[in-house]
């Protein structure tokens, strides 16, 4: 395979299969992601995009095939799962901030308990990251007091505080109003520039075209086409891709 980042892969998936009961959500996914690569995953609703990236940090458990993240294989060994989770950050569509903790505390909690930093170190890092995502003045508010865009930026800061090697985004802007989408995409764009490895499910085609190194199209639990944005958008090979691009670009 050509643009598969095979030279220095940080995520390797081999024939990954996943069933929910007797419904097969992933039907043999094989791909790999290179260090520093930005991969955008697209595809129709229910095609298994979320399931795929949730398998990468074991929020879902795959039943067949192999997933290796940063040299550690995901098995039922708890130590491996912990190691991988501490290297992989994840940002959700619904933000999932802890509503009973202040913004600052949201960002320091896992630093203290998982990364074993002292509270003052953690707070320093948190304020630095809030600065970076553009909302340093919100540190002492509660999530319920922030706008959606601000909450999502806090969620990104919370993940980054763990110094992950990989960031997963599952439709991070789908629950947001247009102005807020811009501010979150801006943060993601900045993040991509720093050389972070990113796997993002998103339908923001502008972002995909500009930032992604590679676009992956899912359909019915399988990757049916992948390639750099220039080729993918202008010269799709698979008829299903053409249809999907038509649908999504028509509005």
């Amino acid at each position, binding site marked *: 395979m050509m643009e598969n980042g095979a030279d220095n892969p940080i995520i390797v998936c081999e024939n990954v299969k996943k069933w929910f009961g007797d419904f097969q959500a992933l039907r043999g996914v094989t791909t790999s992601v290179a260090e520093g690569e930005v991969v955008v995953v697209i595809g129709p609703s229910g095609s298994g995009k979320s399931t795929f990236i949730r398998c990468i*940090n*074991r*929020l879902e458990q795959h039943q067949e095939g192999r997933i290796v993240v940063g040299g550690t294989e995901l098995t039922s060994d708890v130590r491996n799962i*912990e190691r991988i*989770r*501490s290297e*992989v*950050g*994840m940002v*959700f569509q*619904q933000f*999932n*901030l*802890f*509503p*009973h903790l202040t913004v600052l505390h949201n960002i320091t*909690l*896992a*630093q*203290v*308990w*998982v*990364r*074993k*930093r*002292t*509270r*003052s170190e953690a707070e320093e890092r948190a304020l630095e990251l809030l600065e970076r995502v553009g909302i340093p003045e919100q540190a002492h508010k*509660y999530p*319920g*007091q922030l706008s959606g865009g601000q909450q999502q930026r806090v*969620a990104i800061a*919370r*993940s980054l505080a*763990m110094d992950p090697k990989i960031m997963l985004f599952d439709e991070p802007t789908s629950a947001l109003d247009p102005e807020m989408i811009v501010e979150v995409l801006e943060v993601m764009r900045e993040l991509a520039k720093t050389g972070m490895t990113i796997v993002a499910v998103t339908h923001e085609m502008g972002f995909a075209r500009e930032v992604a190194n590679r676009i992956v199209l899912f359909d019915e639990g399988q990757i049916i086409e992948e390639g750099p944005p220039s080729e993918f958008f202008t010269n799709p090979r698979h008829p299903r891709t053409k249809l999907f691009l038509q649908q999504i670009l028509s509005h």
Partner: protein
Amino acid sequence: MNRPSLAPPTRPPFWRNATFLKWAAQIGVLFGVVALGYVLIGEAAANMRAQGLSLDWDLLTDPPGIQLGEGIFVKPDTGMEAFYTGAVNMLRVAMSGILAATVIGAVVGIARLSSNWLASRLATAFVETVRNIPVLVQVVFWFFLSSILFPVLQEGSSGPIPGLLLVSRKGISFAWPFPQETFWQWGVFLVVGLLTARWAYRTRMRRAEEMGEETRPLTWALLIFLAWAIVGWFAHPLAGAVGWLFGLLAAQVGAIPVLVYQVMLALAALYLAWRWIHRFLESRRSPAGLAKLTDDDYFRMILAGVLGTGGAAVLLLWPGITELGANVFQALLEFCDQKFDFLRTGAPLAIGQPSVEVPGRFAQIADTGMTMTPSFFGIWMGVTLYTSSFIAEIVRGGVLSVPKGQTEAGYALGLRRGQLLRMVILPQAFRVILPPLGNQYLNLSKNTSLGIAVAFPEMVQVGQTMFNQTGDTIQVILLWMGFYLTISLLISLLINYYNRRAQLVER
């Protein structure tokens, strides 16, 4: 920019002023209620007089000539003693019942959520059975079960666990430690132990939060408390010094003239009001400056001021109140003084042996272990299990109310299961659980009045026996209402206090 100029605001006439109307309505309602109460009570008193009924309270001081099944005074000399016995019996059931129902409810609720098939099925069966049978039926069921299932008491029987547990138709009795005369001296060590344990808990907890280490705060606190308890067990005569201190204080309290207390207390009342207003203003102040105060805010502050000055005035005008307070305080100090003595030695606790010969007395009196009579067993099992099934549902609902995304976010950050539960799930579940939990506590307390069905002498049963003897129905009903109202209000206050502390900050 050219803005159209507004006319200066005009004040509306007072009958259209929303602030004035709101205040007028509040004061109006207050007067209305007082007036209605005054008329009704006057009317009732007149009617009672006409029928030859009296509202005197002799029943509290007269010998009631009744016997109670169990409790502190089985043959009370006054009505007061009878009601006191009933109240204590009720509180025994309510407090131990609340504790047990909470534990059982939490365990069953979590079991219903568990992925262990057997555990969740059993828990479901328990909840569905217990909450669908009327509590009165359950009370009677347990009462009769204990008299069918348990063996007849035979001469010299001491089983099933000799010296520890005795089960018979006359009741269940188990060995139980009871305080001796040196208990108070030991208690001093226990209090000191509690305080140091709390301090240790906090320091270890802070360290855990700052350093992210597992510092085992609970283990530390427990060990420190235990160390004090063990040292105190042998060294308790040293605490006799506390008695000497109490004696000294008691003498001083009597020597100071009442006027000094009056002035001090009045000043304290004024200070409290001032501090309340001060804090209230502080809480309304944000970094941006003092927020605009609403009418309600002014109302509260004025009320606090009026209460403070009113309290001070009452204290200064009627020295009797202060004098009574001082006397009670002095009596309390002297009472404490008598509980301590350097020369008093011996174990602070003694183990009472199980016995049902003298049913259900407190062992300080009968010198036996803790005994559950069939009546107590019936009412206790009935209300406890019934309430626990509701608590189980409340706990389950609370945990389920925390969105799945919270768990996922926690795992994605690398939190372990235990950390996730402790720091993310439970704090959020707790605020959903708390208000309905308080309702269940209230229900349990009030359901103890079903004890009358199994002849358990709690407040209602005692009251009924009393008015059968004396005919003072109205007084007994007033006593009942006052008692249950007080208990319920206390529980509500406690729950509301915790509830307020647990609320989420929203926009």
